[in-house]
Every structure is written in structure tokens, then in C-alpha cells.
């Protein structure tokens, strides 16, 4: 039945679509121009906190990388690749960001293959285009983090999973591709296990849709993954350090839940634009009911894709509400291709003209959203550490001190800062020492500040990642010192300058008698 429908589609296809089906590579290459152009702008953005952490983590030998990543909340594949990449192409921010871009570009043809495998080559093409136009993906395509690698491996893994579902007798190559992508996937991000969980749940519910003996082979793959991952799990457990540098996350609200989907479609926007998108949620009802068409049954692929989106979201959200907060939209980036495919499937059920209108409108909105991300300096994910540190470099002297809080925000400051003032964290933390970041104590704040600042004239207080005590620190300085200036560089990145005293021991010593 599927082939008969495909023949019909071809017979009615527009010339450009026929051309695409003859040479998809060319069309995909044209599509890829968008992310390449977008990267021209995004790669020039200031280094962000997470990126600085990545660069700091990989700036040591392989053993050191493993040790440090084991203390983080991540797995080491990306860091090892980045380490090797920077060894080959130089230790620059641009080089590091290009690695993420490459994984993103590599993902585009695989999204096409996934869409083609799930539905049709047309859906595959549209999904590839949407993926390439995605403001969310374009943002992470120039971030020195593992998210495009994670998405890439998930797409490849889901592609092989669908092949297993659809092939009457899956070939060894299919199983090998599935197993390899799964093993690499679990080393790209811990959340890859949620992808496997969704696949497992789908398999249990629709076991009859799979070829015979699939359960046995899945068991073998699961064992393979377990064996491959066990040493890392054992190592992390042995050191007992996972999460040492983990930022404190708040339990997500329903706004965060829907915001993640909004970000998947329209990227990172200002609060005003986000409010507009979220307030229009009843339009989702219209999108759903208009798609109710005769005999448009749910294909098993659709059920799988629904599971691939909803199970990770559900587990992350519910787990964050009731166990520990882990809900972060970028951690769920691996559900984005499945989400796009579902959306395109939904649109494909519309009457033809309406369908084209909806697809073009959505693509245009996504491109517009990329434009806003590029041009608007106020979008919340832009972290202007470069500007802030540049200001500090220009103004701070050896008689001044730079204090940053939360402590882990020291990474981007260290990356950019080449000035004479010492840089310390509040609460005080030595990132080179083994152990977690010290907890903040309001009672110890006065003594800690006094200890850190007693030899200096001015303090440059850079507050950029509230861990629940930022306001306490700011109030302390406001109450005890004269504030000389306050500047906001982006989102929550604020720099305050306080006068500690009019002269210092250093200045007294250096002053001629």
C-alpha cells in the first residue's frame, strides 16, 4: 500500500520535487547554506559559560580530560573528540565551534534519510530543511558543547531503529549500525538513555510489528551497550564525583515544558516573543483537529516518533518535579528531529493548498527567528562575557580585584581576561582542587569578602548565574561599600563596581614618600 501511495505522489509531483528525488544530495547541499550562513554570525558571538567549561575541560591530556569530565554531569565522547580536534586545528574558539557545526551539517542528510524511512522522500526533504532552518539547532551548531553530536548520533540511531522495524529481515549492517550508534550515543550524553528507553517502550507495545527474533537481538545490543558503558559508570562511581560542577537547576514549570517546544521551533527569543508564542497554544488544537482526515491511520513509525518525543519529555519533566531537576531544553535536543517529523506528518494530512501554506509559513517563521537570534543582543542565551571582561580589562588595575559568582562562571572570565587584577570566586573555590564547589554560606559571607578584598581598592563584582544567593551577595556589597557603577551586558550578566577603600597597602607602598 505504501508503494502505491508513493507512485501516486510521484505522478502528481511538482518538477522541483522530481528533480530532488533524482539528486537529493544537491538539494540538501543547497539547504545547508542556511546553517553555514547562520554560523558566520553565531561563531563570532562571545564565549558562553558552558563553552568555557568545555574548553577548560579539554585543555589537558586525555587522562586529565576523563578525570575532569567524570566530575561533571556529562559523558566523555565529545570532550575526547574536541580534544583531538583542537590538537589538529588549533586551540581557538572558532575551531572548537566548527566541530559542532560539522556534526550539525552531517546530521542534515541523516534527517532526510530518517524522514524518508519513516514516511517519504518528500517528508525527508522537508524535515531536513526544517532541521537546517531550526534556530535552536543553529544556535547549538556554534556552541562548544556536545549537543549537535548528541543529536547526530540519535538521528543515526533512530534511522537504524526504523530500518529494524521495517525490514522483513534486518541485515547485519542494520544491526551493527544500530548497536554502534547506540554505544556512541550513550557516551555523547546521559540523556541518550531516554532515547533507548523510548525505543524499548515502543518495542514492548508494538512487538508484533517487528520481525521475528528482534527481542533476542535487542537484548544482545543492550548487553553490548551495558558492557561498553560499564567501565565509565564504574569509574564515575568509584570517584564519586559526578555532579561536582553541576549548576543548581530549579524544578521546571509547565511554562518551561512548553517553552522547550517553542524553542525547538522558534529558538531563543525575548520574553515578550515567548509569551506571544505560548499564549497562542490553543492554535495547537486547530492544527490537530484540521488534520483529522478519513482513514489516516497512525503508522507504527508515527507511534515510535511520538514515543521518541513524549517519553523523554515526560521522564525529564516528571523526574525533575519529583526527584531532581534535570529538565533543560538543550538536553532534550535529541527529540527535535522526531518532533519535526511529527509536525510535518501532521501538516501532510491537511488539504494540499493549506499544507503548502502551513509548511512555507512555518519555515519562513523559523528563518525569521534565526534572524532575530542573530541580530537581537537581548535574547537570553547570549552571554556577553567578552564585553564584560573587556570592560574589566580596560578599567581594573592591580589594586583591584575581580570577584565572580557563581564560582563556575570563572571559566569564561579566565578565558578572556588578561588584565592585572586577580580573579577570585564567591564563594571561594579553587577549580584545580579535587572536590565539589563549596556551598554558599550567608554567615560566612562577610568574613569571606573581607578576606578576599582586604588588600584591594575596588572590586569588580561579576554576577552571571544565580544559584540562589546572588541577591544576598549584591545586597551585602550595596550595604557595605560604595557602588561606583552597574552595568548589564546581557540577560543576567551584571557587573557592579564597588569602592572598597581609598587607598591600599599596595598603593601606600607604591606611593613615593
Amino acid at each position, binding site marked *: *500500500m505504501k508503494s*502505491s*501511495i508513493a507512485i*501516486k505522489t510521484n505522478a502528481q509531483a511538482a518538477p522541483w520535487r522530481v528533480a530532488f528525488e533524482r539528486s537529493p544530495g544537491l538539494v540538501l547541499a543547497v539547504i545547508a547554506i542556511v546553517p553555514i550562513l547562520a554560523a558566520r554570525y553565531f561563531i563570532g558571538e562571545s564565549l558562553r559559560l558552558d563553552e568555557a567549561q568545555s574548553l577548560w575541560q579539554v585543555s589537558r591530556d586525555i587522562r586529565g580530560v576523563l578525570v575532569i569530565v567524570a566530575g561533571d554531569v556529562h559523558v566523555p565522547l565529545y570532550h575526547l573528540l574536541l580534544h583531538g580536534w583542537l590538537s589538529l586545528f588549533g586551540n581557538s574558539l572558532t575551531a572548537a565551534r566548527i566541530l559542532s557545526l560539522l556534526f550539525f551539517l552531517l546530521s542534515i542528510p541523516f534527517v532526510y534519510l530518517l524522514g524518508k524511512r519513516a514516511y517519504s522522500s518528500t517528508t525527508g526533504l522537508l524535515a531536513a530543511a526544517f532541521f537546517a532552518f531550526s534556530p535552536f539547532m543553529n544556535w547549538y551548531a556554534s556552541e562548544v558543547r556536545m549537543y549537535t553530536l548528541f543529536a547526530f548520533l540519535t538521528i543515526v540511531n533512530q534511522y537504524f531503529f526504523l530500518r529494524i522495524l521495517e525490514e522483513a529481515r534486518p541485515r547485519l549492517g542494520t544491526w551493527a549500525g544500530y548497536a554502534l550508534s547506540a554505544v556512541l550515543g550513550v557516551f555523547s550524553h546521559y540523556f541518550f538513555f531516554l532515547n533507548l528507553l523510548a525505543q524499548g517502550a515502543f518495542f514492548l507495545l508494538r512487538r508484533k510489528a517487528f520481525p521475528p527474533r528482534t527481542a533476542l537481538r535487542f537484548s544482545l545490543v543492550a548487553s553490548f551497550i551495558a558492557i561498553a558503558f560499564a567501565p565509565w559508570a564504574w569509574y564515575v562511581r568509584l570517584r564519586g564525583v559526578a555532579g561536582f560542577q553541576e549548576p543548581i537547576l530549579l524544578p521546571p*514549570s*509547565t*511554562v518551561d*515544558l*512548553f517553552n522547550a517546544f517553542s524553542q525547538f521551533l522558534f529558538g531563543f527569543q525575548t520574553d515578550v516573543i515567548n*509569551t*506571544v508564542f*505560548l*499564549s*497562542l*497554544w*490553543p*492554535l*495547537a*488544537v*486547530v492544527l*490537530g*483537529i*484540521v*488534520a*483529522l*482526515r*478519513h*482513514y*489516516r*491511520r*497512525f503508522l507504527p513509525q508515527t507511534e515510535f516518533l511520538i514515543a521518541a518525543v513524549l517519553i523523554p519529555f515526560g521522564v525529564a519533566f516528571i523526574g525533575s518535579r519529583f526527584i531532581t531537576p534535570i529538565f533543560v531544553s538543550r538536553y532534550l535536543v535529541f527529540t527535535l528531529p522526531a518532533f519535526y517529523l511529527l509536525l510535518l506528518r501532521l501538516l501532510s494530512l491537511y488539504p494540499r493548498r493549506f499544507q503548502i501554506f502551513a509548511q512555507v509559513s512555518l519555515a519562513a517563521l523559523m528563518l525569521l527567528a534565526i534572524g532575530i537570534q542573530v541580530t537581537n543582543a537581548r535574547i537570553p542565551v547570549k552571554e556577553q562575557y567578552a564585553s564584560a571582561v573587556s570592560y574589566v580589562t580596560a578599567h581594573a588595575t592591580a589594586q583591584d580585584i575581580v570577584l565572580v559568582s557563581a564560582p563556575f562562571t570563572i571559566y569564561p572570565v579566565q578565558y578572556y581576561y588578561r588584565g592585572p587584577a586577580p580573579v577570585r570566586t564567591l564563594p571561594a573555590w579553587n577549580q584545580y582542587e579535587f572536590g565539589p564547589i563549596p556551598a554558599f554560606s550567608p554567615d560566612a559571607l562577610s568574613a569571606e569578602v573581607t578576606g578576599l578584598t582586604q588588600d584591594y581598592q575596588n572590586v569588580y563584582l561579576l554576577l552571571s548565574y544565580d544559584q540562589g544567593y546572588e541577591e544576598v551577595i549584591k545586597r551585602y556589597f550595596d550595604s557595605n561599600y560604595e557602588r561606583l557603577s552597574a552595568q548589564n551586558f546581557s540577560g543576567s550578566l551584571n557587573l557592579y563596581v564597588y569602592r572598597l577603600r581609598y587607598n591600599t597597602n599596595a598603593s601606600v607602598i607604591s606611593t613615593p614618600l
Partner: protein
Amino acid sequence: MNPYYDEAIGDARKDFLRTDSPKTLFIGNGILAAVYFLVLAFVFPVGNPVLFFLLVVGEIFHMWQVFTFLYTVWDTGYQSPAYRGYAPEVDVFITIAGEPVELVRKTVAAARVMRYPNFTVHILNDGFVAGKENWREVEALAKQLGVNCITRTVAGGAKAGNINNALRFSKSPLIACFDADHVPHSDFLLKTVPYFGDPKMGFVQTPQFYKNLGENYLTRSSWEQQELFFGPICKGKNRLNAVTMCGTNMVIRRSALEEVGGMCTESIAEDFITGLLMHGRGYRSEYVPEVLAEGLATEDMLSYSKQQFRWARGALDVIFRWNPLFMSGLTTAQKIQYLSSASFYLSGAIVLLDALLPVTFFYTGLVPVHISGMLLAAVFLPYLFWTLYVIQRSSNFTFTFSSLGFSMGSFNIHLRALASAATFRKSAFGITAKRRVDGNFLPLVSWHIAYIALVVVGIPVAIVREGISASLLNNGAWAVMNSAVFIPIIRAAWPTRIAGTESEQVPAKQKSHEIVDRD
């Protein structure tokens, strides 16, 4: 060649009967519905108390619809035992009231050649009492085809009266009834009569299939509305011995019919009430899930509106005049089923209420509840989409946007029927037109157009009052959704004329008044 078969979509005559009852999905649907209702009713701070009360009433009605639907379709596989070889004498009634003779000829000709050992075909000719010119032609047709023709000369009781009259001129223990346009298959009696081997079997109903479903947008949408009812709902009612009598494509036991005083002449939905009365007397009913006769859907908006009004008015009579809650002899399941079917036509009031909530906000700023964040979306969207999926699964994916739009878009007809039933006004039985009536039917959807106009004007009013706020956007999106739901029925009413097709012209003045009940 089967004209209703398409390689891509299957067989329209069979697929709506391939129902499914996924219990896990049903339970999940019930849980999500309950969670949604509880959150809406108890979590959000109340805004305007009157609007909040109306909203909660509306949602209670929706819960009733969801849970009675789930209860109905919980198991759609039940079938009573058929007694093979049981073949008593049958009278076949074909009710006529001025329909085109050629159309009647096809039905009578098909009825004559049914494969059954012992039956007599009667044309129940009401053309004379209905003042139709072709009543003599029908008599001539009967003579030509060698069937009996019973022409009434004393009016009264509309179709029910016609059947009751014919009871006096026939004697078989079983009576098969067909409307003039419903052409029976040759095996109709073979597949329905054996159930009467059970002496308590009162009537056997089969689906009301529209063979002209591909004629135009309206016929297709009408059929899509029917699929849900004649698919999972009727099959579910069969399990609960609460099959709805539909007036055509059915077989009735004469003694049971006589016991309830013949077909009920006090309601324009004589079949529905008669079935209820027979159930009240302890008779059983059976639904045979197979298309055994093929009829015609209304082809124009005026005829559709009249038909919907008749069904709505008749069903609402069950609530106001023959309320099953107070009727002895019915089981609890039957009471729930009759109330569930009848209360469907109360939905007009709920649709209007829900549609007016955003409009009220535009003009007054009043809201039923103060919602912040996305909690409502988090509970409503899973509930809604799960419910739609359950409907799709249970109906073998035959539920469509058009059928939803027609059901919700008929709210004005349902409201008129509600007013009529609540005030016990008499309504005339209108014969559904068997030919398309051309013309401009936009007056029939004037409420819908007025609603869209209210929205278009209301949004700027709200912007002037409070700027582009989150509440405005949210209410605007709801208003767009309501407007979108009205589009199918507006489309069906849009002026059209198809060259070269047989149709009637109706004076515009008559159109807007014809569905109003007459005293």
C-alpha cells in the same frame, strides 16, 4: 466493481464497521479527562463567578459525553445469536411521500428480488395525504411491479401514521421498513430475520449507508458524521441492548410494535421513541453491523438542516417528554444510553457557551478563571488529543474534521430544537429532499458568520482596552479555533450551482423559515 473501494483508503461500506476497543487507551482517556476537569474546576482562581459556573457546567457536559462514549464503545464485538433457518413471513414496507417515482422504482425493484422465501412488498403511499402530485404514478408503479400499494386517504401522524395505517392491511409477524431511497441488498432479510428466533427480539437495525457520499462536500461530510454513530456507537449499544431504532433499514416484530401502540405519532422522531418504548416493554434489539441497504444523504444545506432539526427535536423529546430516567422497564444501561444519545443534541448550547467565552472577554474583559502559566495547556492538550485518538481508533479512523465541524456547527439547529422541545411545541415532520436544492443557504449559517464578525470586531476592541496582553492572545487563539470549527458548515452553505445536475430551486424566503417548527 465496488465503487466505494479505493486501494489507498479501503472500502467505505465496510471500514466504518471495523471498530476497535483498546481498553488501555480508554482508561487513559478517562483519567486524563478527570484530571483536566479537576484542574480546571479546582486549581485556578475563579474570575467572574457566572462565567465560571457556565464553564464548569459545560465541562461537566463534556465529561458526561466522554465517559458515556467510553462506556458505549468499551466493547463493540457483541452479537446476539442468530437462529439459522428461522424464516417467518415478512411484510416489507416502503414508505413514500412524494419522492420521485424513478427513485421509488429502484427501491421497490430491489425489495422484490430479495432472497427470502416468504415476503410481501407494500408501498406505503402517503403522496395523496401529503398533497404530492405523483401519488397516482406511484400506484401505477406498484401495479407495474406487482407489489401492493397502500395509499392513505386520511392524514395524520406523518411517517409513523403511514406505517400504523399499513399495519391494518398486512398480517405478517415481522415488518421490514425502508425509506423510499433506501435500496435493500438481496440478502437483507436473510441476515436480519434470524435474530427474531429469540421471541423477545423487538427490532433489528442495520446501518443507514449513503451511497451518494461522493456527490458533494455535504454528502461526504454527512456520511462522515454517520460513520461514528453507525460504527462504534451502534455496535456498543448492541452490547447494552440499547440499539437506536432509525426508522429505515430495519425489521420490527409486529406484536411488539402493536404492544406499544404502533409507531409513535407524538414525536417527529417516531423511530427513536418507538424503540425506547419497546425497550421499556422488555423487548430486545439487535444491530447488524453490515451495510444491507443503501440510501441517499441530503445533498443541500437546507435539507440537511431540516433533517438535523428533526433528529434533534425528536431526541430532545426523550429528555423532555419520555425521559428514560423515570420510565419503568428499562435497564440502567439502557437509561444511560438513551440519555447519552438524546443529550448529544444539548451540545448546541455548550458549543455556543464555549464560543462566547472569548468573545465576552473581548468586549468586557471578564474571564471565568484566571490562568497563569501553561498548566491548562498541560492538562487540556493531552486530554483533547488522547480523546481524538480514542475516537479515531474506535471508529477505524473515520472521524474527520468535517464531521466534527458539522456536529459543532449545527449548534444553532440544536438550540432551536432545544427551545422547541423545552416548550413542547409541535413540529411538522419534514420529508428529507431526495434531490439537491440549489441556492444561497448562507442565511442558515448566519449565526456562524455573525460569530466570526464578533471576533473580528472584538479583538481590536480588546486591544484598545488592554493592549496586546497574554490573555488577549490566548482568547484570540480560542476564538480562532471556534471560528475554524465553523468553516465546514459555512462551506457547505456557500452558494453553489453545479451545471447539468438535477436540482430544485427554493425561494430564498422559504429557506430560512422552513426548518422552524410549525404549530
